[in-house]
């Protein structure tokens, strides 16, 4: 096993040289996690908005369940998707197990509750401010959903970034349903886990650097966006 400083040097070299294997892994990670975020946005944002404005029996239960699902352990999500998609499972005939699609599904399952629950919180406090005025102008609760989604766009974008952060950093779910197949379903987190256990620290460290850089960039972007929006939109 090389020394730590040597490993760092090699890792930096891989990143700077744009190593082909490294690039492929990073690209797949981004593709899987961004797609999962799109799916989670399409499902979670309207769900969160509806829960924010609608009043129906059982609403509180749904909210509690959603909040609990925010803490769903990735390996459990992975296991459930695995059981669904495995050859003997109910969706086994789709042949999705150990494909990037299965990884997208797993991450989407993981972060849709996060997006929905956070969106619900953001939009419900907005609705408290807006409800009387919007109803006075003739808006029904349902009609208020697009109004709230658009008015909360900046806060909701940071909600999606939080979802992206969670999706791109998790390892358990994609490991189980993707299988960490080289060149096909190997993403940053599963590669780091594998290379570390094999003792190939330079590649693990290089991937770790890229992952950190992505997460930091995303968070910095979220912060800048919030500040810009506060100045521009109030």
């Amino acid at each position: 096993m090389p020394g730590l400083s040597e490993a760092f040097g090699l890792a930096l070299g891989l990143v700077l040289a744009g190593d082909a294997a490294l690039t492929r892994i990073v690209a797949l990670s981004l593709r899987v996690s961004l797609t999962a975020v799109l799916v989670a946005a399409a499902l979670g944002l309207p769900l969160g908005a509806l829960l924010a404005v609608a009043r129906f029996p059982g609403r509180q239960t749904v909210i509690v369940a959603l909040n609990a699902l925010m803490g769903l352990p990735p390996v459990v999500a992975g296991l459930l998707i695995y059981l669904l998609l495995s050859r003997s499972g109910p969706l086994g005939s789709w042949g999705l197990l150990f494909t990037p699609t299965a990884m997208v599904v797993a991450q989407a399952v993981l972060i849709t509750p996060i997006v929905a629950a956070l969106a619900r919180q953001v939009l419900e406090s907005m609705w408290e401010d807006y409800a009387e005025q919007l109803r006075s102008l003739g808006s029904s609760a349902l009609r208020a959903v697009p109004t709230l989604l658009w008015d909360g766009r900046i806060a909701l974008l940071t909600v999606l970034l939080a979802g992206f952060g969670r999706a791109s950093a998790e390892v358990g779910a994609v490991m189980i349903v993707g299988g960490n197949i080289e060149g096909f379903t190997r993403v940053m987190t599963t590669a780091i886990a594998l290379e570390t256990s094999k003792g190939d620290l330079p590649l693990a460290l290089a991937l770790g650097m890229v992952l950190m850089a992505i997460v930091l960039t995303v968070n910095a972007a979220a912060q800048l966006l919030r500040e810009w929006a506060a100045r521009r939109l109030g």
Partner: protein
Amino acid sequence: MHGLPSPLPLSVQGLGFTAGGVRVLDGVTFALRDGPPCLVVGPNGSGKSTLLRLLHGLLRPTEGAVRWSAPARQAMLFQRPVMLRRSVGDNLAHALSLAGIGRDERPARIAAALDAVGLPHLHDRPARRLSGGEQQRVALARAIALHPAILFLDEPSASLDPAATRAVEEIVAGIAARGTKVVMTTHDLHQARRLAGEVLMLHRGRVAEHAPAAEFFTCPRSPEAQAFLRGDILE
């Protein structure tokens, strides 16, 4: 001005409202006719805001009824204006869209309404970034753009400085002069004197007096109104 059957007189009969076991309004009966502004006065907690919300339809009465003579195009201005996170023009456009006003008609209505409140230059500014006084004037423009037959205002200048209050009062007087029935709450008797054509005084959720302004301020009949005008504390 509107070319539609007038929703007035508005007849309110035996109106009662209970919230959380508290009787906010009780047996409120009066009629509102076309004419100069009706100022709803009374001490804090007398039920002024609740009455406005019941008339506007934001609350359902526990007892009694609010009867319009014809369907009423109405708008309401709140103490704290709620502006959407978009430009002034888009805020007005959103209200017009909810009112079912077609896209082609909106720009002219928006321009006229912003002219009426003296803020045409703020059309493209983010509404939330304006001062409280400017936001209240934009809220007035939003109401004006709807061409309401009735405009309810709930303490519209309670959180404004004197200059902004004057601006709001001038705009409200202008709206009334153009034929919209103005119904406005205030706890400020001076403001009521400046604007009122008629006064409806509430006390403990009941109508203490409903009279033309000249009469109310010179020879009030009810003991509550007499005490209120003297500046006594009414409980």
